[in-house]
């Protein structure tokens, strides 16, 4: 494996950057927030991104995709990270598509993947039930009925949940054998739940940077047997696979936004003058900038490595995903916090863009497990 991009990938990244910097720069995010009735992203922009083929990137050709791989989608996510463009690439094209590809039957794939690939269908995973990310701890239940399943419970902070056409919901299918303990793994199943199913309640929740999450309640949601994704009780492995793809996708976004915030801040250090000289001539700032540059170099390698491992179906993807997320989160939060500090007072203003990067980094850290979750998971994966 060569840790470098090929020409096709470089061109893809460049075309993504061109489109996004032209059509959806940070002021696009600002306009969404200030425009009222914000549902998280712009349907027009999403349609435009879809015509570029971005949601089709990881989906096999036989299901309407481009089969261009996770590395390609990761490069696009890096660019949406740079421009902070809100869109369901991560939730739908990265995670939901991964769950379907990994765990779905051919019928389920044929039914859903072409829509996801074209961008017409937005699908998202609903798994968290509490403020802490604990995908293996599930209280929502799916009871077997004569003609399928009946789901009850609630899901919290579902990414792009308010705009999704299709949810993939985790629920316990072991209630008959439950001894009151929280099940861990083997008893969790995944279900395909169309957004307009009776009994499904969706409440939007705007996150701190304009992205919209959703709380989902399930009250006697009745589903046919064909709604089961993967084997009954086999949902956690599929979920973990999709979550790891999502975490690595997040890392690509974090890399993009950290690089953008860093580059903007370096430019500011060169232009802002105090004491009659550019503040970038002060060694106190130079050393901090240089040290962050080194950390960002590590991040670039980690992200490319993780994307390539996703593409090669690496069996140890869990450790790779957690390693990458820890480093990307720690670096992106450091870089974006320093970006505010170096900008001084203006960095604290809403009018100036730099604070948006800090906010986005925080959301990406919190969703799908923060640094502490992944440090713990990384250590566990390595047997200590």
């Amino acid at each position, binding site marked *: 494996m060569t840790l470098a991009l090929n020409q096709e990938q470089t061109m893809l990244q460049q075309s993504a950057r061109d489109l996004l910097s032209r059509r959806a720069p940070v002021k696009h995010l600002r306009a969404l927030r200030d425009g009222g009735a914000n549902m998280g992203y712009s349907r027009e922009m999403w349609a435009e991104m879809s015509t570029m083929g971005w949601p089709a990137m990881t989906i096999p050709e036989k299901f309407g995709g481009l089969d261009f791989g996770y590395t390609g989608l990761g490069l696009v996510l890096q660019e949406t990270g740079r421009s902070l463009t809100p869109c369901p690439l991560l939730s739908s094209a990265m995670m939901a598509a991964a769950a379907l590809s990994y765990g779905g039957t051919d019928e389920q794939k044929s039914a859903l993947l072409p829509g996801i690939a074209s961008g017409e269908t937005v699908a998202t995973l609903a798994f968290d039930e509490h403020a802490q990310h604990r995908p293996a701890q599930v209280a929502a239940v799916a009871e077997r009925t004569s003609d399928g399943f009946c789901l009850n419970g609630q899901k919290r902070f579902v990414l792009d949940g308010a705009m999704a056409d299709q949810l993939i919901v985790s629920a316990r299918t072991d209630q008959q054998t439950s001894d009151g303990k929280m099940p861990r793994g083997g008893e969790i199943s995944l279900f395909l739940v169309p957004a307009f199913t009776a009994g499904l309640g969706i409440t939007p929740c705007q996150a701190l940077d304009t992205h919209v999450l959703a709380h989902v309640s399930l009250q006697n949601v009745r589903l046919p047997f064909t709604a089961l994704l993967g084997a009954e009780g086999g949902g956690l492995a599929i979920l973990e696979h999709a979550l790891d793809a999502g975490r690595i996708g997040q890392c690509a976004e974090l890399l993009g936004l950290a690089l953008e915030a860093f580059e903007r801040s370096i430019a500011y250090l060169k232009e802002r003058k105090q004491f009659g000289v550019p503040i970038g001539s002060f060694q106190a700032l130079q050393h901090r900038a*240089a*040290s962050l*540059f080194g950390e960002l*170099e*590590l*991040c670039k*390698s*980690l992200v490319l490595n993780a994307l390539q491992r996703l593409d090669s179906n690496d069996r140890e993807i869990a450790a790779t995903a957690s390693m990458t997320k820890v480093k990307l989160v720690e670096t992106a939060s450091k870089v974006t916090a320093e970006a505010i500090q170096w900008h001084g007072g203006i960095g604290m203003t809403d009018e100036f863009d730099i604070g948006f990067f800090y906010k986005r980094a925080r959301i990406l850290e919190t969703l799908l497990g923060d640094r502490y979750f992944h440090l*713990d998971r990384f250590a566990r994966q*390595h047997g200590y």
Partner: protein
Amino acid sequence: MTELEDFRAAARTWLENKCPTGMRSPLQTEADLCWGGRHFRFQSPDQETWLRNMAAKGWTAPDWPREYGGGGLDQAHLKVLQEEMQHIGARPPLYSFGLSMIGPALLKYGSEKLKQQHLPPIVRGEIRWAQGYSEPNAGSDLASLQARLEGRGDHYVLNGSKIWTSYGDLGDWMFCLVRSDSEGAKHAGISLVLFDMTTPGVSTRPIRLISGKSPFTETFFDHARVEKDQVVGELNSGWTVAKYLLTHEREMIGGAGLRPTGEEPLGRIAARVLGLESGQLANPMLRGDIARLEIDSEALGLTMQRARDEVKAGASLGATSSVFKYLGTEINMRRQELLMAIHGLQSVDWSGPDSEDGRLPRAWLRSRGNSIEGGTSEIQLNIIAKHILGLPG
């Protein structure tokens, strides 16, 4: 089979036959390294056989041209060889400043005569090289060095001193930065010269470090003779060569941040020494720090690989070596701190029967030098800030 696969198969067979079993275990300490040179005492017959076998094949310097004794391998073949050596856990047959530093500089800047004279003995491990860079008054400000080179008809004489010469007392030849012109800009009057350490007027004195060991010497020059044809590159252009050399040195030092070949991962050492409680390291605070260190160390390895892949695709290493030097040494220092913490009181045992001659505390103390030698961390940050980020002076 492709040509590369043929090469892999041939290399595997050859290594299987030619690498003695004693050379297929991880290096325990620096003392296990084969440095070569006139006075080197081989640790074992296996070590000597391994060096001879590899040198005969040119594989002590696998990517150097064959005409100078090297293996003539391109990057793809080199990688295959490295993988095959790793496959059987083969130790490096030779470790020397000749291979890692002056050799590459001679290949790039040396005259044909210098290449013919010096490269083959480096490949064979016959000559051990010492580096003469820092002086008592020229540390971070290296370009202010004062060791004086003066013309005396058909030769030069050298006066002055160097400090922090790695294994100066064991070196056979020295590559040395000297002041050959004291007029004009300080960078412009520096030359890189080569001389035999047995030349009359050259003497060394060991420097004892806080680790109790003396891996460095001071080196003194009292009217020492230097031949005219032993200048690398043009006279007074030594700074360019020196910077190139430092690039290699820094990348090499940066390798300290990687887990040493054959050594257990830190997490596994900790699990063995401290034990687990319900599947987790018994010390939860230490556990987090170890995980962070392992992540950084792996990220550094990936970044070095990425840099090599990018160099292959035509990029130049340049100031990036400062990134590796800075990150690698800081990571190794953290690693040494964590090893001390993992081993508790055992880590302060300097000379007890279980201490392996104070291996842990001496390595920990030695590592403080990592962020000083080869240009301090602060100098590396200056280089990154100015030459990569373009921040104003």
